[in-house]
């Protein structure tokens, strides 16, 4: 009896590792290609050997060389824009999520539906007409203008609202009887309990804004304001001869930030999704 489940456990573990490796292959290749000289990258594909993936010479020169170009600046731009979006977007989603779940006021369910439906329409759908307006009000080539892409996130509002709904209202009423204002109730009663969903919503906002491509293409015309993903595409298409090692180094930098955050915080994301009532 005991031997069969054990065998299954081994089998499932092996399958899990194989699948994970398969999904990580492009990432591993990106990592090792960014750490080897340019001449080596395509040198070992015929025939395919272990050296196709494992460098003969390890070097940091691609990464150092890349940061000397404009790419470092683009990375910094991405970071600034993404922090603005995540902060403002989170504050906005918390305020709206709290209002439509805890407070009663006329039209709140209609407003909630508007928020989730409206913000679930991808931003890119309106990027072209909006970019003309943004140009008119002079927000082109500004960090705030760039940050607009990811600001409204229906998923973030939905996650927070679902979580706030699950907190017993008696907690809020007790605090109210003690003379706390509604803002105080939000700050001292609801927020401390909502660490998980706040992190999950923040991660969603961050990851989305970090990979924005179409919007920066439209509103960041000044090379100094270029963000990472657009700069990476420039490395590939603008220069006739592609320096693949630099391209891989750029790809690595752009991936490490969001992937690292997700590796660190993924359990909050996974548990928030499970508890949101989205799947049950």
């Amino acid at each position, binding site marked *: 009896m005991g031997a069969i489940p054990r065998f299954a*456990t081994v089998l*499932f*573990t092996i399958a899990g*590792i194989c*699948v*994970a490796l398969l*999904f990580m292959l*492009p990432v591993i290749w990106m990592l090792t290609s960014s750490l080897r000289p340019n001449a080596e990258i395509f040198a070992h594909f015929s*025939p*395919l050997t272990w050296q*196709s*993936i494992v460098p003969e010479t390890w070097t940091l020169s691609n990464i150092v060389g890349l940061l000397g170009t404009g790419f470092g600046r683009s990375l910094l731009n991405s970071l600034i824009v993404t922090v603005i979006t995540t902060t403002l977007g989170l*504050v*906005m*989603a918390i305020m709206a999520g709290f*209002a439509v779940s805890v*407070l*009663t006021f006329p039209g709140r369910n209609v407003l909630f539906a508007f*928020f*989730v*439906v*409206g*913000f*679930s*329409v*991808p*931003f*890119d*759908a309106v990027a*072209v*007409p*909006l970019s003309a*307006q943004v140009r008119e009000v002079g927000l082109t080539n500004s960090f705030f203008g760039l940050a607009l892409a990811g600001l*409204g996130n229906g998923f973030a509002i939905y996650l927070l609202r679902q979580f706030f709904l699950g907190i017993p209202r008696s907690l809020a009423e007790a605090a*109210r*009887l003690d003379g706390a*204002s*509604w*803002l105080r109730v939000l700050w001292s009663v609801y927020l401390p309990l909502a660490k998980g969903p706040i992190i999950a919503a923040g991660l969603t906002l961050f990851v989305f804004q970090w*990979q924005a*491509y179409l919007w920066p293409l439209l509103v960041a015309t000044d090379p100094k304001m270029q963000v990472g*993903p657009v700069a*990476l*595409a420039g*490395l590939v298409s603008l220069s006739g001869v592609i320096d*693949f090692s630099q391209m891989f180094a750029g*790809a690595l930098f*752009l*991936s490490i930030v*969001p*992937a690292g955050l*997700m*590796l660190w915080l*993924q359990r909050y994301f*996974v548990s928030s*999704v*499970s508890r949101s009532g*989205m*799947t*049950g």
Partner: protein
Amino acid sequence: MRDRFAIFGAKSQEWLVGLLLIVPAFLALLFLRVIPAGIAVWESLHQRSFFNPDEKMFVGLDNFVFLFTTSPTFLKSMLVTLVFVTVTVAVQTVVALMLALLFTQRGWGMSFWRTLVFLPITIPVAVSAVVWGTAMRGDGIINAALERIGIPAQPFLASSDQALWSVVIIASWIGVGYWMVFLIAGLRDIPDDVKDAAALDGAGPLRTFFSITLPLLKRPLAFVVVANTVANFLQFVPAAILTQGGPENSTRFVMYEIYTQAYVQGDVSLADAQIVLVLIVLLAIVALQFRLLRSKE
């Protein structure tokens, strides 16, 4: 007396606080969705003079008529998008479900392996595009691997027969792990005693899956299908970076078509007419998604 006053105060303040708290989200919705959509509708009914872009003429539905009858690329781009979304969503949902079943089994370090499958969603699409694009080159690592097992080199993105499927592969690598998380959550919500009862009745694993698990997973599956459709409908980056919509328009996704229409051909009114059509489709799908989310409340 004081208590009554406090309760009264709470009541009268509550709606005001509620309305104040939604102001930022409301303004964002207005300026970042509603107004630009309205502008698109307005512009789509006009035509700008070629010589003087400030001069606008009301043309009614002419732009839409042009799109459906004369435009050499619009219908093609809709077809490409439709095929792409259908195949991508089907492939991703089936694979995500299989992986969700695997990663809810007992095993060592399963949550870590699961996280690695989930990681590609965090990698910017531009990165996935250039890395996969490089791997799929004629002299790239994928063809090297194919040759090793005796399959001749494939053109992938360079061929009009394979380019769209190559983008399906890239998009699926990105998305499968993300949708898997929703299905894992759905599987975890199925009570153990339901499955135990089926096992006691002598149902094998396949039978249990099709008559117990799958019906109980209807809601998360529906959510994944609908949300994934929205997520892939405006695919842009692979076309913009890797294929420029080609070869022979085989990857001319509708978002790439709109972008080209507005910034390469310079016909903003026509681009706005396409945006209006896309918005109608997306609104319908998103409303369906919202209904799915609410149906259990």
